[in-house]
């Protein structure tokens, strides 16, 4: 995926609906664009359609109606070879992680680089850096199924970030993390963003996008409930567990 000029969006949803058989409407009439290098938070309650939206961007699902364009490719008309090439340029952290339980942490993180035939030394260096950044160095050779959910989540994020992807999709990336590790993950995302990666983060954690100037779309029952364009900071959410003044 070449860096597209600022005027052409890297992601373009045009009146997109997704209906799962027989008649479960996951998304309805969704339209938005994301510019290259931008950051979009997709928020909403569970079942609002956040994961479906990410699945449409990564072409795991096809839209029932409307057009999804990623990096200039209409995903309904993309050829298998183009789709493979597009996916190699995407980092995706899935809600269910989609990691390989019998392989080591390092092997899981290395996978996106393996499939792009990256030299071994580069892979090793990048894996070590990500493990260090996400405080997982001591788990390098541990089999994935021996890790806690939170550790697995960090491995999934490391894998998504491994290849310096121009586009990174993260589905509930901090769902299993504590405050400290959430900060590690958000710092990594910030690093990638500064390097030019477009970030699409689906989350119901308000604290992730509060006090930021990023684009935020709130979904409710498959529709866009509200959309806050970039450069308009939202007020900070109340801290979890904070006592309200009487």
């Amino acid at each position, binding site marked *: 995926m070449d860096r597209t000029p600022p005027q052409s969006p890297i992601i373009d949803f045009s009146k997109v609906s997704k209906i799962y058989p027989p008649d479960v409407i996951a998304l309805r009439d969704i339209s938005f664009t994301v510019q290259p290098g931008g950051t979009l938070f997709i928020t909403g309650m569970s079942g609002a359609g956040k994961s479906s939206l990410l699945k449409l961007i*990564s072409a795991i699902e096809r839209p029932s109606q409307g057009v999804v364009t990623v990096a200039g490719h209409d995903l309904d008309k993309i050829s298998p070879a183009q*789709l493979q090439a597009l*996916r*190699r340029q995407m980092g995706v952290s899935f809600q269910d992680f*989609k990691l390989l339980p019998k392989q080591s942490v390092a092997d899981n993180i290395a996978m996106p680089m*393996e499939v792009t*035939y990256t030299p071994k030394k580069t892979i090793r260096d990048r894996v070590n850096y990500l493990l260090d950044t996400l405080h997982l160095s001591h788990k390098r050779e541990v089999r994935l199924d021996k890790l806690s959910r939170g550790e697995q989540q960090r491995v999934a994020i490391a894998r998504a970030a491994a290849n310096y992807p121009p586009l990174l999709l993260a589905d509930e990336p901090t769902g299993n993390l504590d405050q400290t590790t959430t900060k590690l993950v958000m710092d990594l995302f910030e690093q990638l963003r500064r390097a030019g990666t477009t970030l699409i983060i689906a989350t119901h954690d308000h604290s992730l996008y509060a006090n930021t100037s990023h684009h935020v779309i709130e979904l409710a029952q498959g529709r866009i409930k509200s959309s806050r364009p970039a450069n308009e900071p939202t007020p900070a959410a109340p801290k979890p567990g904070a006592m309200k003044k009487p």
Partner: protein
Amino acid sequence: MKTRSILSQTARNLSQTLGSQIMTMATVSLSVLIFSFFFLVFLNLQRTGIQLGEYIKIIVYLDEEPTATEKPLIEKQIRDFGPVDSVVFKSRAEALAQLDRHLGPDRDLLADLSPDFLPPSIEVHPARSLTALTRLKEFSDFLATLPKATKVQYGREWIERLASLTQLVRLIVYLSGGLLVLTSTFMVSSTIRLTVVTRQAELEVLRLLGADSAYIKTPLFLEGLIQGACGSGAGLLCLYGLFTWVQGHFSGHSALNMLTFAFLPGEAVILILVVSIALCTLGSLISIRKFLRI
């Protein structure tokens, strides 16, 4: 880099399903061993037939010796029927002298016998083109019609037995060849299918990460190729070991000393290797096409 990645992926595949890989290689190896064993036996039987053909002579026993004027006429009659290397007339005296030489130290056995108790004969050495079983029969039938001929002898029984044995082994070679085709193709196909099934989750992740077809399919293709190469190589090595053992243990026997046994020629070994590898690769291709969805 691409080759290295694909090779390491292949090694990972092989190690993940090592048990079934070994079973498949053993089956391919056994099939190759069975086929090449019978092929080796067949080739040696053929060679034996050819070697023995060189010793074949037809003896026509006569009730009395032909005269000097009759001999050229008889020889012409014989040579007119078919190609012959030599025609030798043996008188009673020559036959006795020959027997005397054969008996060596036991020649005193002949002391009390009449010097003309052996019949005169004609030894006919047919040319190579006449040594085929059916042609020999025709030739001996013809020789029996010669004037003064009483009996014709040419070791018909063992020639017939050798021919039947060669036919039987040829049939076994065909059957074991069929077995080789079936086992190599289907066993490898099943193993690759098993690999695809056991690695379904991994293949799905690879697909989501954008792995290209070469990255996913080539290791599976190579798996079949390696199974074919290792399986057939091991089978042929076992056959060579068996051949060397048989040679070492039986070469001293006088009956076998007459004949020279040889291992499969280099071309046959290469052909068996290439065909086995091709069959195993075909097996893996069948599974890749049938079960792998990318």
